[in-house]
């Protein structure tokens, strides 16, 4: 994969952070179309960026050609977004607590914590051929 591909309700990007803005523009545009307010849009955009960064770095091990796929749907006043990579998943309970005093000055390790704080639901499903994280946020 060389560049982002948009199809139906999804965007797939190569595994490189230079494509984070492509995902952001896509997701925010759809959320505005759904009528979400700007604060919710920001919360969702932040969360999606966290998951995409993790998918690139950890799921796909930054192998550029391996895609990260983001899908978005709205059902009954809530938006559901999935971020899928080709990795073998992770246990969020294995991540050090970023708000423990000894971890406060770490540069990394806050992504999933922030997603869980901002979103209504977070679900992580790991399969043999990839991992999908699903987040849900009420927008009306």
């Amino acid at each position, binding site marked *: 994969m060389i560049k982002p591909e948009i199809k139906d309700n999804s965007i797939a990007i190569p595994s490189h952070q230079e494509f984070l803005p492509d995902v*952001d523009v896509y997701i925010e545009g759809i959320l505005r179309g759904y009528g979400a307010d700007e604060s919710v849009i920001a919360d969702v955009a*932040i969360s999606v*960026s966290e998951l995409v960064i993790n998918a690139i770095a950890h799921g796909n091990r930054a192998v550029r050609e391996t895609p990260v796929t983001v899908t978005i749907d709205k059902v009954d006043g809530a938006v559901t977004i999935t971020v899928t990579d080709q990795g073998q998943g992770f246990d969020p309970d294995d991540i050090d607590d970023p708000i423990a005093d000894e971890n*406060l000055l770490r540069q990394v390790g806050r*992504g999933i914590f922030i997603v869980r704080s901002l979103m209504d639901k977070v679900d992580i499903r790991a399969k043999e051929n990839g991992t999908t994280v699903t987040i849900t946020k009420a927008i009306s």
Partner: protein
Amino acid sequence: MKLSDREQGGIVILEPRGKIMGGPDATLLHDTLYGFIQQGKTRVVIDLGRIEWMNSTGLGILVQSYTTLKNSDGQLKLARVTNKIESLLTITKLVTIFESYDTVEDAVGSFQ
């Protein structure tokens, strides 16, 4: 993210604009800050008033900047923190680390 900078009374004021989400953002802010440190300019205010949002990468950049300046006997202070960033700093307890001021003038004045 775009970044401009200026100096006032010996204090460096960094003015990022847009979103801080990762990739080139991290390098730009880091390299700019290091350039000032190498010049011996270690009292820095980051004006966050034009930042729409940042993610954990952005917070990590702030933490790295804070630590780097502190290790160089300097200080980092934040100004014009928006509600969205304030909530992230609170969620992550980083609000206990950073000094924040409502205006850039107040932040600059706090160094006196």
